[in-house]
Protein backbone atom coordinates (compact mmCIF):
# COMPACT_ATOMS: atom_id res chain seq x y z
CA UNK A 1 0.00 0.00 0.00
CA UNK A 2 1.05 3.56 -0.51
CA UNK A 3 3.52 3.80 2.29
CA UNK A 4 4.12 7.41 3.21
CA UNK A 5 0.60 8.73 2.85
CA UNK A 6 -1.45 6.17 4.76
CA UNK A 7 1.18 5.79 7.46
CA UNK A 8 0.08 9.18 8.70
CA UNK A 9 -3.16 7.63 9.92
CA UNK A 10 -1.17 6.21 12.84
CA UNK A 11 -0.30 9.59 14.32
CA UNK A 12 -3.51 10.05 16.36
CA UNK A 13 -3.13 6.54 17.75
CA UNK A 14 0.44 7.30 18.78
CA UNK A 15 -0.66 10.43 20.58
CA UNK A 16 -3.52 8.55 22.24
CA UNK A 17 -1.14 5.86 23.45
CA UNK A 18 1.41 8.37 24.67
CA UNK A 19 -1.22 10.12 26.75
CA UNK A 20 -2.83 6.97 28.13
CA UNK A 21 0.23 4.73 28.50
CA UNK A 22 3.22 7.05 28.81
CA UNK A 23 1.76 9.82 30.91
CA UNK A 24 0.38 7.60 33.71
CA UNK A 25 3.73 5.84 33.89
CA UNK A 26 5.40 9.14 34.67
CA UNK A 27 2.69 10.07 37.15
CA UNK A 28 3.10 6.75 38.94
CA UNK A 29 6.86 7.01 39.16
CA UNK A 30 6.54 10.51 40.59
CA UNK A 31 3.87 9.38 43.05
CA UNK A 32 6.11 6.70 44.52
CA UNK A 33 8.50 9.40 45.76
CA UNK A 34 5.76 11.47 47.36
CA UNK A 35 3.59 11.36 50.39
CA UNK A 36 0.28 12.78 49.32
CA UNK A 37 -3.43 12.57 49.83
CA UNK A 38 -4.53 11.02 46.53
CA UNK A 39 -3.47 13.43 43.79
CA UNK A 40 -3.60 16.54 45.95
CA UNK A 41 -0.30 18.23 45.18
CA UNK A 42 -0.75 21.14 47.61
CA UNK A 43 -0.20 18.92 50.65
CA UNK A 44 2.24 16.53 48.99
CA UNK A 45 5.75 16.15 50.25
CA UNK A 46 8.81 14.29 49.09
CA UNK A 47 9.17 10.91 50.82
CA UNK A 48 10.74 7.46 50.48
CA UNK A 49 8.11 5.87 52.71
CA UNK A 50 6.55 3.82 49.95
CA UNK A 51 9.88 2.34 48.94
CA UNK A 52 10.78 1.56 52.54
CA UNK A 53 7.42 -0.11 53.02
CA UNK A 54 7.83 -2.20 49.88
CA UNK A 55 10.85 -3.98 51.34
CA UNK A 56 9.80 -4.11 54.98
CA UNK A 57 6.06 -4.70 55.01
CA UNK A 58 5.10 -8.29 55.75
CA UNK A 59 1.69 -7.94 54.11
CA UNK A 60 3.37 -7.16 50.82
CA UNK A 61 5.44 -10.28 51.08
CA UNK A 62 2.43 -12.44 51.94
CA UNK A 63 0.39 -10.91 49.14
CA UNK A 64 3.18 -11.47 46.62
CA UNK A 65 3.58 -15.05 47.78
CA UNK A 66 -0.17 -15.76 47.62
CA UNK A 67 -0.43 -14.18 44.18
CA UNK A 68 2.54 -16.06 42.76
CA UNK A 69 1.53 -19.43 44.22
CA UNK A 70 -2.09 -19.36 43.10
CA UNK A 71 -1.46 -17.72 39.75
CA UNK A 72 1.43 -20.12 39.12
CA UNK A 73 -0.61 -23.21 39.88
CA UNK A 74 -3.54 -21.90 37.84
CA UNK A 75 -1.23 -21.21 34.90
CA UNK A 76 0.27 -24.68 35.02
CA UNK A 77 -3.16 -26.30 35.16
CA UNK A 78 -4.38 -24.09 32.32
CA UNK A 79 -1.41 -25.19 30.23
CA UNK A 80 -1.91 -28.87 31.01
CA UNK A 81 -5.59 -28.65 30.09
CA UNK A 82 -5.39 -25.96 27.43
CA UNK A 83 -2.71 -27.46 25.22
CA UNK A 84 -4.52 -30.75 24.56
CA UNK A 85 -7.78 -28.90 24.01
CA UNK A 86 -6.17 -26.55 21.50
CA UNK A 87 -4.50 -29.54 19.86
CA UNK A 88 -7.75 -31.45 19.59
CA UNK A 89 -9.55 -28.48 18.07
CA UNK A 90 -6.74 -27.75 15.62
CA UNK A 91 -6.84 -31.35 14.40
CA UNK A 92 -10.57 -31.87 14.44
CA UNK A 93 -12.81 -32.17 11.42
CA UNK A 94 -15.48 -29.90 12.79
CA UNK A 95 -15.83 -26.26 11.98
CA UNK A 96 -12.92 -24.97 14.06
CA UNK A 97 -14.22 -21.45 14.10
CA UNK A 98 -17.40 -22.57 15.79
CA UNK A 99 -15.63 -24.64 18.44
CA UNK A 100 -13.25 -21.81 19.22
CA UNK A 101 -16.18 -19.47 19.60
CA UNK A 102 -17.83 -21.93 21.95
CA UNK A 103 -14.63 -22.34 23.93
CA UNK A 104 -13.59 -18.74 24.23
CA UNK A 105 -16.07 -16.04 23.34
CA UNK A 106 -19.44 -17.37 24.41
CA UNK A 107 -18.48 -18.05 28.06
CA UNK A 108 -17.35 -14.44 28.27
CA UNK A 109 -20.85 -13.23 27.53
CA UNK A 110 -21.66 -14.36 31.02
CA UNK A 111 -20.32 -11.93 33.54
CA UNK A 112 -17.09 -13.25 34.99
CA UNK A 113 -17.90 -12.11 38.52
CA UNK A 114 -21.21 -13.89 38.32
CA UNK A 115 -19.54 -17.02 37.01
CA UNK A 116 -17.09 -17.01 39.91
CA UNK A 117 -19.93 -16.39 42.26
CA UNK A 118 -21.61 -19.48 40.85
CA UNK A 119 -18.41 -21.48 41.38
CA UNK A 120 -18.28 -20.15 44.93
CA UNK A 121 -21.82 -21.33 45.39
CA UNK A 122 -20.90 -24.77 44.07
CA UNK A 123 -17.93 -25.02 46.42
CA UNK A 124 -19.88 -24.01 49.53
CA UNK A 125 -21.41 -26.31 52.12
CA UNK A 126 -24.82 -25.79 50.68
CA UNK A 127 -25.05 -25.31 46.96
CA UNK A 128 -27.87 -25.13 44.50
CA UNK A 129 -26.30 -27.96 42.47
CA UNK A 130 -26.41 -30.24 45.49
CA UNK A 131 -29.97 -29.20 46.08
CA UNK A 132 -30.97 -30.07 42.53
CA UNK A 133 -28.98 -33.32 42.59
CA UNK A 134 -30.71 -34.35 45.82
CA UNK A 135 -33.95 -34.56 43.90
CA UNK A 136 -32.54 -37.35 41.77
CA UNK A 137 -30.80 -39.03 44.69
CA UNK A 138 -27.28 -37.72 44.09
CA UNK A 139 -25.18 -35.35 46.07
CA UNK A 140 -22.15 -33.15 45.55
CA UNK A 141 -20.60 -31.40 48.50
CA UNK A 142 -17.10 -29.98 48.36
CA UNK A 143 -16.92 -27.02 50.73
CA UNK A 144 -13.53 -25.52 49.91
CA UNK A 145 -14.58 -21.93 49.41
CA UNK A 146 -12.29 -19.74 51.51
CA UNK A 147 -10.02 -22.66 52.43
CA UNK A 148 -6.30 -22.13 51.98
CA UNK A 149 -3.03 -23.75 52.98
CA UNK A 150 0.04 -22.24 54.63
CA UNK A 151 1.71 -21.88 51.27
CA UNK A 152 -1.11 -19.56 50.30
CA UNK A 153 -2.52 -22.16 47.91
CA UNK A 154 -6.29 -21.95 47.80
CA UNK A 155 -7.97 -24.67 45.73
CA UNK A 156 -11.16 -22.70 45.27
CA UNK A 157 -9.34 -19.61 44.01
CA UNK A 158 -7.26 -21.72 41.62
CA UNK A 159 -10.40 -23.37 40.25
CA UNK A 160 -11.93 -19.95 39.70
CA UNK A 161 -8.79 -18.66 37.99
CA UNK A 162 -8.54 -21.72 35.75
CA UNK A 163 -12.17 -21.62 34.67
CA UNK A 164 -11.98 -17.87 34.05
CA UNK A 165 -8.70 -17.69 32.17
CA UNK A 166 -8.50 -21.07 30.41
CA UNK A 167 -9.78 -19.57 27.13
CA UNK A 168 -6.80 -17.21 27.10
CA UNK A 169 -4.51 -20.25 27.08
CA UNK A 170 -6.45 -22.18 24.46
CA UNK A 171 -6.79 -19.42 21.89
CA UNK A 172 -3.13 -18.48 21.24
CA UNK A 173 -2.01 -22.11 21.24
CA UNK A 174 -4.80 -23.01 18.84
CA UNK A 175 -3.81 -20.10 16.59
CA UNK A 176 -0.25 -21.33 16.15
CA UNK A 177 -1.17 -25.00 15.94
CA UNK A 178 -3.65 -24.31 13.20
CA UNK A 179 -1.08 -22.43 11.17
CA UNK A 180 1.46 -25.26 11.22
CA UNK A 181 1.90 -26.56 7.72
CA UNK A 182 0.58 -30.14 7.68
CA UNK A 183 3.20 -31.10 5.13
CA UNK A 184 5.85 -30.46 7.79
CA UNK A 185 4.35 -33.25 9.87
CA UNK A 186 4.17 -35.50 6.85
CA UNK A 187 7.79 -34.72 6.11
CA UNK A 188 8.72 -35.64 9.67
CA UNK A 189 6.83 -38.94 9.45
CA UNK A 190 8.42 -39.51 6.08
CA UNK A 191 11.81 -39.09 7.69
CA UNK A 192 11.04 -41.89 10.10
CA UNK A 193 9.74 -40.15 13.22
CA UNK A 194 6.63 -41.69 14.71
CA UNK A 195 3.65 -39.65 15.84
CA UNK A 196 4.96 -39.05 19.34
CA UNK A 197 8.41 -38.06 18.14
CA UNK A 198 6.91 -35.83 15.48
CA UNK A 199 4.90 -34.08 18.13
CA UNK A 200 7.85 -33.40 20.40
CA UNK A 201 10.35 -32.58 17.67
CA UNK A 202 8.18 -30.59 15.26
CA UNK A 203 4.74 -29.61 16.51
CA UNK A 204 5.64 -28.57 20.02
CA UNK A 205 8.70 -26.45 19.16
CA UNK A 206 6.63 -24.71 16.49
CA UNK A 207 3.91 -23.91 19.01
CA UNK A 208 6.21 -22.37 21.65
CA UNK A 209 5.13 -18.93 20.47
CA UNK A 210 1.51 -19.60 21.32
CA UNK A 211 2.42 -21.30 24.59
CA UNK A 212 4.43 -18.28 25.69
CA UNK A 213 1.59 -15.91 24.92
CA UNK A 214 -0.91 -18.22 26.58
CA UNK A 215 1.12 -18.53 29.76
CA UNK A 216 1.50 -14.79 30.04
CA UNK A 217 -2.13 -14.11 29.22
CA UNK A 218 -3.19 -16.46 32.04
CA UNK A 219 -0.53 -15.65 34.58
CA UNK A 220 -0.77 -11.87 34.50
CA UNK A 221 -4.48 -11.45 35.21
CA UNK A 222 -4.41 -14.33 37.72
CA UNK A 223 -1.49 -12.72 39.48
CA UNK A 224 -2.90 -9.23 39.61
CA UNK A 225 -6.64 -9.78 40.01
CA UNK A 226 -8.52 -9.04 43.19
CA UNK A 227 -12.14 -9.95 42.49
CA UNK A 228 -11.68 -13.72 42.26
CA UNK A 229 -9.70 -13.97 45.52
CA UNK A 230 -12.36 -11.90 47.16
CA UNK A 231 -15.21 -14.09 45.91
CA UNK A 232 -13.62 -17.54 46.19
CA UNK A 233 -11.16 -16.84 48.97
CA UNK A 234 -13.97 -15.34 51.03
CA UNK A 235 -11.67 -12.39 51.61
CA UNK A 236 -9.35 -14.58 53.74
CA UNK A 237 -6.57 -14.26 51.25
CA UNK A 238 -4.57 -11.13 50.43
CA UNK A 239 -3.41 -10.88 46.84
CA UNK A 240 -1.22 -8.17 45.41
CA UNK A 241 -4.27 -6.89 43.53
CA UNK A 242 -6.25 -6.74 46.77
CA UNK A 243 -3.49 -4.66 48.28
CA UNK A 244 -3.34 -2.21 45.38
CA UNK A 245 -7.10 -1.86 45.41
CA UNK A 246 -7.24 -1.14 49.12
CA UNK A 247 -4.39 1.40 48.93
CA UNK A 248 -6.08 3.35 46.17
CA UNK A 249 -9.44 3.17 47.92
CA UNK A 250 -7.74 4.61 51.02
CA UNK A 251 -6.34 7.43 48.92
CA UNK A 252 -2.79 6.19 49.43
CA UNK A 253 -1.85 6.62 45.80
CA UNK A 254 1.85 6.56 46.59
CA UNK A 255 2.18 3.00 47.79
CA UNK A 256 -0.53 1.86 45.37
CA UNK A 257 1.48 3.27 42.47
CA UNK A 258 4.63 1.57 43.64
CA UNK A 259 2.90 -1.81 43.80
CA UNK A 260 1.45 -1.20 40.33
CA UNK A 261 4.94 -0.49 39.07
CA UNK A 262 6.09 -3.83 40.48
CA UNK A 263 3.41 -5.55 38.39
CA UNK A 264 4.31 -3.40 35.43
CA UNK A 265 7.91 -4.56 35.68
CA UNK A 266 6.76 -8.16 35.34
CA UNK A 267 4.57 -7.19 32.43
CA UNK A 268 7.37 -5.47 30.56
CA UNK A 269 9.49 -8.55 31.05
CA UNK A 270 6.70 -10.66 29.57
CA UNK A 271 6.26 -8.29 26.68
CA UNK A 272 9.95 -8.44 25.88
CA UNK A 273 9.60 -12.21 25.85
CA UNK A 274 6.56 -12.13 23.59
CA UNK A 275 8.18 -9.64 21.26
CA UNK A 276 11.09 -12.02 20.95
CA UNK A 277 8.98 -15.01 19.94
CA UNK A 278 6.16 -13.23 18.12
CA UNK A 279 7.06 -9.97 16.42
CA UNK A 280 3.78 -9.38 14.63
CA UNK A 281 1.54 -10.16 17.57
CA UNK A 282 -0.32 -12.83 15.66
CA UNK A 283 -0.85 -15.09 18.68
CA UNK A 284 -2.62 -12.47 20.75
CA UNK A 285 -5.91 -13.09 19.03
Amino acid at each position, binding site marked *: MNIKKLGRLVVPYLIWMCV*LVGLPLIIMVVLTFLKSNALDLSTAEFSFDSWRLLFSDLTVRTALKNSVVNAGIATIICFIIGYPVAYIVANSNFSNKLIILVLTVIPMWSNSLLRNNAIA*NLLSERSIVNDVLNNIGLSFIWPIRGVFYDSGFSPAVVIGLVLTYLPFMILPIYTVLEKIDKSLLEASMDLGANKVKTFFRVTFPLSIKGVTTGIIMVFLPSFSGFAIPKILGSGNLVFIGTLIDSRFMNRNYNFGSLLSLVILLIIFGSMALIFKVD*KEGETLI
Partner: protein
Amino acid sequence: MSSKVLSLSRKIVLFFRRPKVEKTLKITISIIKWVFFVFIIFLLYLPIFIIAVQSFNNSQLMYDFTEFTFKWYGMIFQERALRQAIMNSLLIASLATLISTVLGTIFSIGIHSLTKKRRQKMVLLNQVPILNADIVTGISLMLVFKVFMYIFPDIFGFTTMLLAHIFFCLPYVILSILPKLSELDDNLYDAALDLYCKPATGILKVIIPAISSGIFTGMLMAFTMSIDDFVISYFNTGQGFDNVSIWIYASIGRQMSPAVYAYNTAFSFLMIALLIVISVRSSLKKRKNLIRFSQNKI
Protein backbone atom coordinates in the same frame (compact mmCIF):
# COMPACT_ATOMS: atom_id res chain seq x y z
CA MET B 1 17.71 -59.88 34.03
CA SER B 2 17.92 -56.88 31.73
CA SER B 3 17.55 -59.08 28.68
CA LYS B 4 14.38 -60.44 30.23
CA VAL B 5 13.02 -56.94 30.64
CA LEU B 6 14.01 -56.18 27.08
CA SER B 7 12.27 -59.19 25.64
CA LEU B 8 9.23 -58.43 27.75
CA SER B 9 9.09 -54.89 26.50
CA ARG B 10 9.49 -56.13 22.96
CA LYS B 11 6.61 -58.50 23.56
CA ILE B 12 4.51 -55.61 24.79
CA VAL B 13 5.36 -53.51 21.76
CA LEU B 14 4.59 -56.43 19.45
CA PHE B 15 1.31 -56.97 21.25
CA PHE B 16 0.28 -53.39 20.56
CA ARG B 17 1.42 -53.67 16.97
CA ARG B 18 -1.05 -56.47 16.28
CA PRO B 19 -3.65 -55.00 13.89
CA LYS B 20 -6.62 -55.83 16.05
CA VAL B 21 -5.01 -54.46 19.19
CA GLU B 22 -3.79 -51.40 17.33
CA LYS B 23 -7.29 -50.67 16.15
CA THR B 24 -8.80 -51.05 19.60
CA LEU B 25 -6.06 -48.83 21.00
CA LYS B 26 -6.78 -46.17 18.44
CA ILE B 27 -10.48 -46.19 19.23
CA THR B 28 -9.80 -46.09 22.96
CA ILE B 29 -7.48 -43.11 22.57
CA SER B 30 -9.98 -41.24 20.46
CA ILE B 31 -12.73 -41.96 22.99
CA ILE B 32 -10.54 -40.71 25.85
CA LYS B 33 -9.73 -37.66 23.78
CA TRP B 34 -13.35 -36.73 23.19
CA VAL B 35 -14.44 -37.52 26.73
CA PHE B 36 -11.71 -35.19 27.95
CA PHE B 37 -12.72 -32.51 25.47
CA VAL B 38 -16.40 -32.67 26.36
CA PHE B 39 -15.53 -32.67 30.06
CA ILE B 40 -13.53 -29.45 29.70
CA ILE B 41 -16.38 -27.79 27.84
CA PHE B 42 -18.70 -29.02 30.57
CA LEU B 43 -16.47 -27.41 33.21
CA LEU B 44 -16.30 -24.15 31.29
CA TYR B 45 -20.06 -24.04 31.01
CA LEU B 46 -20.83 -25.35 34.48
CA PRO B 47 -20.85 -21.87 36.10
CA ILE B 48 -23.03 -20.55 33.31
CA PHE B 49 -25.37 -23.47 33.81
CA ILE B 50 -25.53 -22.82 37.54
CA ILE B 51 -26.40 -19.19 36.83
CA ALA B 52 -29.18 -20.38 34.55
CA VAL B 53 -30.52 -22.72 37.23
CA GLN B 54 -30.47 -19.87 39.72
CA SER B 55 -32.36 -17.69 37.29
CA PHE B 56 -35.23 -20.17 37.23
CA ASN B 57 -35.29 -20.65 40.98
CA ASN B 58 -38.33 -19.31 42.76
CA SER B 59 -36.40 -18.94 46.02
CA GLN B 60 -34.00 -16.08 46.62
CA LEU B 61 -31.67 -18.43 48.46
CA MET B 62 -28.68 -19.44 46.41
CA TYR B 63 -28.65 -23.00 47.74
CA ASP B 64 -32.29 -23.91 47.80
CA PHE B 65 -34.09 -24.75 44.58
CA THR B 66 -37.78 -24.54 45.35
CA GLU B 67 -39.78 -24.11 42.22
CA PHE B 68 -39.25 -23.42 38.53
CA THR B 69 -40.20 -19.86 37.62
CA PHE B 70 -39.78 -17.21 34.97
CA LYS B 71 -40.56 -14.39 37.37
CA TRP B 72 -36.98 -13.09 37.61
CA TYR B 73 -36.97 -12.51 33.87
CA GLY B 74 -39.85 -10.14 34.40
CA MET B 75 -37.94 -8.50 37.23
CA ILE B 76 -34.86 -7.61 35.16
CA PHE B 77 -36.12 -4.13 34.45
CA GLN B 78 -38.05 -3.70 37.65
CA GLU B 79 -35.16 -3.01 39.96
CA ARG B 80 -33.99 0.50 39.37
CA ALA B 81 -30.28 0.06 40.21
CA LEU B 82 -29.92 -3.13 38.19
CA ARG B 83 -31.84 -1.70 35.25
CA GLN B 84 -29.60 1.34 35.23
CA ALA B 85 -26.47 -0.83 35.44
CA ILE B 86 -27.63 -2.97 32.52
CA MET B 87 -28.41 0.11 30.45
CA ASN B 88 -25.02 1.55 31.26
CA SER B 89 -23.21 -1.68 30.37
CA LEU B 90 -24.97 -1.98 27.05
CA LEU B 91 -24.53 1.70 26.23
CA ILE B 92 -20.83 1.67 27.02
CA ALA B 93 -20.23 -1.62 25.21
CA SER B 94 -22.10 -0.49 22.09
CA LEU B 95 -20.45 2.90 21.91
CA ALA B 96 -16.99 1.56 22.72
CA THR B 97 -17.39 -1.16 20.10
CA LEU B 98 -18.60 1.26 17.46
CA ILE B 99 -15.91 3.84 18.08
CA SER B 100 -13.04 1.42 18.48
CA THR B 101 -14.07 -0.48 15.36
CA VAL B 102 -14.07 2.66 13.23
CA LEU B 103 -10.87 4.04 14.72
CA GLY B 104 -9.23 0.62 14.84
CA THR B 105 -9.86 0.10 11.13
CA ILE B 106 -8.29 3.43 10.28
CA PHE B 107 -5.31 2.89 12.57
CA SER B 108 -4.78 -0.63 11.25
CA ILE B 109 -4.56 0.65 7.71
CA GLY B 110 -2.04 3.21 8.93
CA ILE B 111 0.03 0.65 10.82
CA HIS B 112 -0.03 -1.70 7.86
CA SER B 113 1.39 0.97 5.58
CA LEU B 114 4.40 1.58 7.81
CA THR B 115 7.82 0.15 7.09
CA LYS B 116 8.45 -3.21 8.70
CA LYS B 117 10.48 -1.91 11.64
CA ARG B 118 8.01 0.80 12.53
CA ARG B 119 5.14 -1.59 12.13
CA GLN B 120 6.67 -3.98 14.62
CA LYS B 121 7.13 -1.16 17.08
CA MET B 122 3.51 -0.13 16.71
CA VAL B 123 2.34 -3.71 17.16
CA LEU B 124 4.37 -3.88 20.35
CA LEU B 125 2.84 -0.67 21.62
CA ASN B 126 -0.57 -1.96 20.63
CA GLN B 127 0.00 -5.01 22.83
CA VAL B 128 0.45 -2.93 25.96
CA PRO B 129 -3.25 -2.68 26.82
CA ILE B 130 -3.82 -6.36 25.99
CA LEU B 131 -1.00 -7.75 28.06
CA ASN B 132 -1.10 -5.19 30.79
CA ALA B 133 -2.81 -6.34 33.94
CA ASP B 134 -6.30 -4.90 34.16
CA ILE B 135 -5.57 -3.36 37.52
CA VAL B 136 -2.57 -1.44 36.20
CA THR B 137 -4.49 -0.32 33.13
CA GLY B 138 -7.39 0.74 35.30
CA ILE B 139 -5.22 2.71 37.69
CA SER B 140 -3.15 4.27 34.91
CA LEU B 141 -6.23 5.55 33.17
CA MET B 142 -7.69 6.75 36.43
CA LEU B 143 -4.57 8.77 37.17
CA VAL B 144 -4.62 10.43 33.75
CA PHE B 145 -8.31 11.19 33.99
CA LYS B 146 -7.79 12.62 37.48
CA VAL B 147 -5.26 14.98 35.94
CA PHE B 148 -7.74 15.86 33.21
CA MET B 149 -10.21 16.72 35.95
CA TYR B 150 -8.35 19.98 36.47
CA ILE B 151 -9.63 21.00 33.05
CA PHE B 152 -12.87 19.01 32.81
CA PRO B 153 -14.09 18.61 36.38
CA ASP B 154 -17.06 16.41 35.51
CA ILE B 155 -15.55 13.70 33.36
CA PHE B 156 -15.61 10.89 35.92
CA GLY B 157 -18.49 8.58 35.17
CA PHE B 158 -19.81 7.98 31.67
CA THR B 159 -17.01 9.78 29.81
CA THR B 160 -14.10 8.16 31.62
CA MET B 161 -15.61 4.72 31.43
CA LEU B 162 -16.24 5.08 27.72
CA LEU B 163 -12.71 6.33 27.06
CA ALA B 164 -11.28 3.51 29.16
CA HIS B 165 -13.29 0.91 27.26
CA ILE B 166 -12.22 2.36 23.92
CA PHE B 167 -8.66 2.20 25.20
CA PHE B 168 -8.70 -1.54 25.84
CA CYS B 169 -10.98 -2.46 22.91
CA LEU B 170 -8.93 -0.71 20.21
CA PRO B 171 -5.96 -3.10 20.40
CA TYR B 172 -8.20 -6.12 19.89
CA VAL B 173 -9.77 -4.56 16.83
CA ILE B 174 -6.37 -3.66 15.43
CA LEU B 175 -4.97 -7.12 16.10
CA SER B 176 -7.90 -8.77 14.29
CA ILE B 177 -7.59 -6.52 11.27
CA LEU B 178 -3.82 -6.47 10.74
CA PRO B 179 -3.49 -10.11 9.62
CA LYS B 180 -6.31 -9.60 7.12
CA LEU B 181 -4.50 -6.59 5.72
CA SER B 182 -1.27 -8.48 5.26
CA GLU B 183 -3.15 -11.19 3.37
CA LEU B 184 -4.20 -8.62 0.79
CA ASP B 185 -2.39 -8.07 -2.47
CA ASP B 186 0.04 -5.18 -1.93
CA ASN B 187 -1.27 -3.43 -5.00
CA LEU B 188 -4.96 -3.55 -4.12
CA TYR B 189 -5.15 0.06 -3.01
CA ASP B 190 -3.10 1.20 -5.99
CA ALA B 191 -5.44 -0.74 -8.24
CA ALA B 192 -8.37 1.21 -6.80
CA LEU B 193 -6.59 4.50 -7.48
CA ASP B 194 -5.70 3.26 -10.94
CA LEU B 195 -9.38 2.64 -11.58
CA TYR B 196 -10.37 6.21 -10.77
CA CYS B 197 -10.98 6.07 -7.00
CA LYS B 198 -9.87 9.01 -4.92
CA PRO B 199 -7.79 7.96 -1.89
CA ALA B 200 -10.65 7.94 0.61
CA THR B 201 -13.04 6.21 -1.80
CA GLY B 202 -10.36 3.65 -2.53
CA ILE B 203 -10.16 2.71 1.12
CA LEU B 204 -13.94 2.61 1.50
CA LYS B 205 -14.69 0.70 -1.68
CA VAL B 206 -11.81 -1.73 -1.75
CA ILE B 207 -9.79 -2.08 1.43
CA ILE B 208 -12.65 -2.12 3.93
CA PRO B 209 -14.78 -4.70 2.10
CA ALA B 210 -11.72 -6.88 1.59
CA ILE B 211 -10.95 -6.93 5.32
CA SER B 212 -14.55 -7.06 6.50
CA SER B 213 -14.19 -10.45 8.20
CA GLY B 214 -11.34 -9.07 10.31
CA ILE B 215 -13.39 -6.03 11.18
CA PHE B 216 -16.26 -8.25 12.26
CA THR B 217 -13.97 -10.39 14.45
CA GLY B 218 -12.57 -7.23 15.99
CA MET B 219 -16.05 -5.93 16.69
CA LEU B 220 -17.03 -9.17 18.35
CA MET B 221 -13.89 -9.16 20.49
CA ALA B 222 -14.36 -5.53 21.45
CA PHE B 223 -17.95 -6.02 22.47
CA THR B 224 -17.14 -9.17 24.42
CA MET B 225 -14.24 -7.57 26.27
CA SER B 226 -16.24 -4.47 27.04
CA ILE B 227 -19.32 -6.25 28.34
CA ASP B 228 -17.28 -8.56 30.57
CA ASP B 229 -14.94 -5.94 31.99
CA PHE B 230 -14.91 -5.29 35.70
CA VAL B 231 -11.57 -4.02 36.97
CA ILE B 232 -10.98 -1.18 34.52
CA SER B 233 -14.57 0.02 34.79
CA TYR B 234 -14.33 -0.16 38.55
CA PHE B 235 -11.43 2.30 38.70
CA ASN B 236 -12.77 4.61 36.02
CA THR B 237 -16.30 5.27 37.06
CA GLY B 238 -17.78 7.99 39.16
CA GLN B 239 -20.95 9.85 40.01
CA GLY B 240 -22.70 6.56 40.55
CA PHE B 241 -22.29 5.43 36.96
CA ASP B 242 -22.27 1.67 37.60
CA ASN B 243 -22.20 -1.08 35.02
CA VAL B 244 -23.36 -4.64 35.65
CA SER B 245 -19.97 -5.84 36.87
CA ILE B 246 -19.67 -3.05 39.39
CA TRP B 247 -23.23 -3.67 40.54
CA ILE B 248 -22.46 -7.36 41.04
CA TYR B 249 -19.19 -6.64 42.84
CA ALA B 250 -21.02 -4.37 45.22
CA SER B 251 -23.66 -7.04 45.89
CA ILE B 252 -21.28 -9.94 46.51
CA GLY B 253 -21.69 -11.38 49.97
CA ARG B 254 -25.05 -9.72 50.27
CA GLN B 255 -28.35 -11.04 49.05
CA MET B 256 -28.14 -10.53 45.28
CA SER B 257 -31.35 -10.13 43.37
CA PRO B 258 -31.80 -13.24 41.17
CA ALA B 259 -32.91 -10.87 38.41
CA VAL B 260 -29.24 -10.49 37.57
CA TYR B 261 -29.02 -14.23 36.85
CA ALA B 262 -31.99 -13.86 34.59
CA TYR B 263 -30.36 -10.94 32.82
CA ASN B 264 -27.11 -12.84 32.40
CA THR B 265 -28.82 -15.89 30.95
CA ALA B 266 -31.08 -13.90 28.67
CA PHE B 267 -28.18 -11.80 27.43
CA SER B 268 -26.07 -14.86 26.59
CA PHE B 269 -28.95 -16.40 24.69
CA LEU B 270 -29.69 -13.24 22.78
CA MET B 271 -26.05 -12.91 21.78
CA ILE B 272 -25.89 -16.52 20.64
CA ALA B 273 -29.10 -16.06 18.68
CA LEU B 274 -27.72 -12.92 17.09
CA LEU B 275 -24.53 -14.72 16.10
CA ILE B 276 -26.54 -17.55 14.57
CA VAL B 277 -28.70 -15.14 12.60
CA ILE B 278 -25.64 -13.33 11.29
CA SER B 279 -23.83 -16.49 10.23
CA VAL B 280 -26.95 -17.97 8.65
CA ARG B 281 -27.51 -14.78 6.71
CA SER B 282 -23.97 -14.67 5.43
CA SER B 283 -24.13 -18.30 4.32
CA LEU B 284 -27.47 -17.60 2.64
CA LYS B 285 -25.85 -14.77 0.77
CA LYS B 286 -23.11 -17.10 -0.37
CA ARG B 287 -25.70 -19.57 -1.57
CA LYS B 288 -27.50 -16.84 -3.47
CA ASN B 289 -24.31 -15.97 -5.29
CA LEU B 290 -23.84 -19.62 -6.09
CA ILE B 291 -27.33 -19.86 -7.55
CA ARG B 292 -26.75 -16.76 -9.61
CA PHE B 293 -23.53 -18.22 -10.86
CA SER B 294 -25.01 -21.58 -11.80
CA GLN B 295 -27.95 -19.94 -13.57
CA ASN B 296 -25.51 -17.87 -15.48
CA LYS B 297 -23.59 -20.95 -16.51
CA ILE B 298 -26.69 -22.57 -17.95
